[in-house]
């Protein structure tokens, strides 16, 4: 099989049945070929280790403290599961958690959907209009949360809409959509438009072409958008404060309200559970995607970076196609 290694690192293969196949190589094989080679020395591993310690040390402390019988963070009072037991009996916190999760998932799904449709639409606009639309989309991103929260509160007040679950959900969707669009647009820009046109040439209607060709191409962007909006929604305090009213409360509101006295140790237990859940979800997702990536049914390797190496599914780092 003739291999033509060009300096851009793209190999063109000819398979047995004469179909030329392009395989994107992530990095050339020769060491020292490029300045930033993948030589993993002890230095870079140490650096990586330090970063992970920084990220995860507070969480590890939190997890350890959730089993601490003493209420103080300073001393160890013995191992206990008391905080977990009390957590499940605490109506306030469970209520807040339920609201938080429902709002987070709903707003993430709706915002991602709206984000996909908006991105595809914005991408199809003429250049000048696209730039204007992107500027408009960015305005909610850079507006401080406080301004967004108060203006939404005033809006609902003027429209005589009572603040509650619906207003909370609407507010979350409102601040999530720009982030969803921001996550999906880059993938659209990277996408090869000729695929879309080729699909139409082969008989797809435009809608089918979008659904069967474009969406799978921008799939990583959609997943990023979903995860980002989910996290932003769970994390949000200021906007939730002004739009939740007296009907519902979220986890962030409950935790912040403990600032004057001291954070109830049950929150440590709750945070541990949330972290462990997210951790396992991500591990599962990463294992699934990296095992699916091996080969397609035809035995042809799908195009993708670094397909030969199967990297360890570090939590939180997605193997992007």
């Amino acid at each position, binding site marked *: 099989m003739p291999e033509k290694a060009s300096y851009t690192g793209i190999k063109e293969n000819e398979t047995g049945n004469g179909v030329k196949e392009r395989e994107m190589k992530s990095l050339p094989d020769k060491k020292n070929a490029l300045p930033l080679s993948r030589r993993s020395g002890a230095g870079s591993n140490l650096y990586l280790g330090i970063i992970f310690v920084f990220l995860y040390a507070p969480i590890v402390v939190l997890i350890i403290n959730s089993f601490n019988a*003493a209420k103080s963070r300073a001393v160890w009072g013995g191992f206990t599961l008391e905080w977990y037991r*009390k957590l*499940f009996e605490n*109506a306030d916190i*469970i209520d807040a958690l339920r609201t938080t999760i429902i709002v987070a*998932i709903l707003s993430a799904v709706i915002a991602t959907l709206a984000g996909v449709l908006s991105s595809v639409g914005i991408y199809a606009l003429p250049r000048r209009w696209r730039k204007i639309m992107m500027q408009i989309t960015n305005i909610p991103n850079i507006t401080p949360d406080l301004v967004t929260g108060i203006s939404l509160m005033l809006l609902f007040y003027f429209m005589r809409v009572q603040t509650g679950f619906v207003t909370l959900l609407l507010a979350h969707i409102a601040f999530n959509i720009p982030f969803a669009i921001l996550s999906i647009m880059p993938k659209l820009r990277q996408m090869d438009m000729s695929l879309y046109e080729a699909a139409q040439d082969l008989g797809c209607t435009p809608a089918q072409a979008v659904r069967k060709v474009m969406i799978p191409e921008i799939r990583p962007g959609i997943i990023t958008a979903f995860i980002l909006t989910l996290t932003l929604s769970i994390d949000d305090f200021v906007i939730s404060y*002004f739009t939740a009213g007296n009907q519902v409360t979220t986890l962030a509101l409950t935790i*912040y309200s403990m600032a*004057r006295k*001291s954070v109830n140790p049950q929150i440590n237990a709750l945070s541990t559970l949330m972290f462990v859940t997210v951790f396992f979800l991500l591990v599962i997702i990463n294992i699934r995607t990296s095992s699916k990536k091996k080969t397609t049914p035809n035995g042809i390797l799908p195009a993708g970076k670094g397909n030969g190496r199967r990297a360890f599914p570090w939590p939180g780092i997605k193997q992007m196609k």
Partner: protein
Amino acid sequence: MKRIKLLAVLLAAIMVASLAACGGSEGQNGNEQTKLYIYNWGEYMSRESDTWDFYGTDYELSDVIADFEDAYPQYDVEYRMFDDNEMMYAQLATVSYDVIFPSDYMIARLIREDKLQPLDMEKLPNVTEYMDPMLKDVAWTPDADETAALFDYAVPYLYCTVGLIYNQDEIASPATNDPRDVWAPLFDSANQNRIGMYNSMRESIGVGLNYLGYSMNTLNEAELEEAMELLIEQRQQVAPILGIDELKDKFVSGELTAGVAWSGDHVVIQQRLQDAGQDPEMIRYTLPKGSNISVDMMAIPSSAENVQGAHDFINFMYETEVAVKNAVYVGYSSPHLEAVAELPQVVTGNESYYPGPDLIATLEPYYSTPEIDQTYDNLWVQYLAN
């Protein structure tokens, strides 16, 4: 991607369903229930069933909101929490609550702006019977009429004082309760890096003023100047650690020798020391003359919808067992006469938590007028910037 999303949503749905099953079930009965919205500070009411060892005596705590709903089944209580008077004030503009728990200066402001409705004392027999009249003697506002009017609109819930908290093993107890003696360790450079000051405008500047013998509400420029110089000197020579909640743990772990604290904080610290198996008497609390006293009171906003329910709730909070439970859980001082009788003597006999009439006459609340707020705000910003 679809399957992953489905998986995630399914997992979440299972989690939510399991949460819905355990805990969090409100008392459903077929009768007509009216909603009652309570807006309180976070962690400021007994909400869990537990046996607490409070200074050697065991107290059975329970969820007082659940108890209230049992006693008054016609009410369905929604309990919301805040952490700051100003944020509560902002919420009141657009959201209706039935009972709120502002601090003294915020109540004065709300009354001035007609945001509270007067209480019907006929519906609050427990308050009339059990409320400690001593709190009425404190000059809560500069205007005597306003102070008297305060108690027509609100009822005290818990009060606290600001004082010196110190490690007995490292610092000798103050000789008298004169502010000069009491606050001295905070400004002593021998205690460098081991002092904790509150990251709060009024507490920090107030301590400086009190130490110099001035009123904590003064607008006299010379006095304020002197206090600021003192604080800046303290920062340079003593390097205090600024914080609020974090300071408690630092006292428990022994990192700090002395600091400013609320009386309730000291109770919490002693309980934590006890939990950890250490001697709670290691950390002590002294209230100097002229220091701050503040009270959190229950009031009914004018936009409240369930006024009858609000009165019933306030009356219920003044049931003896309920007041005891709240005082034990929160750790602050209770204005309920019978509850005080049931709390441990070591707490209620301590003048620093429950000051007698002589000491109370010297204590000052923080006045909050636009002038004072602005002046102190500027000073605090200057202090933080230097």
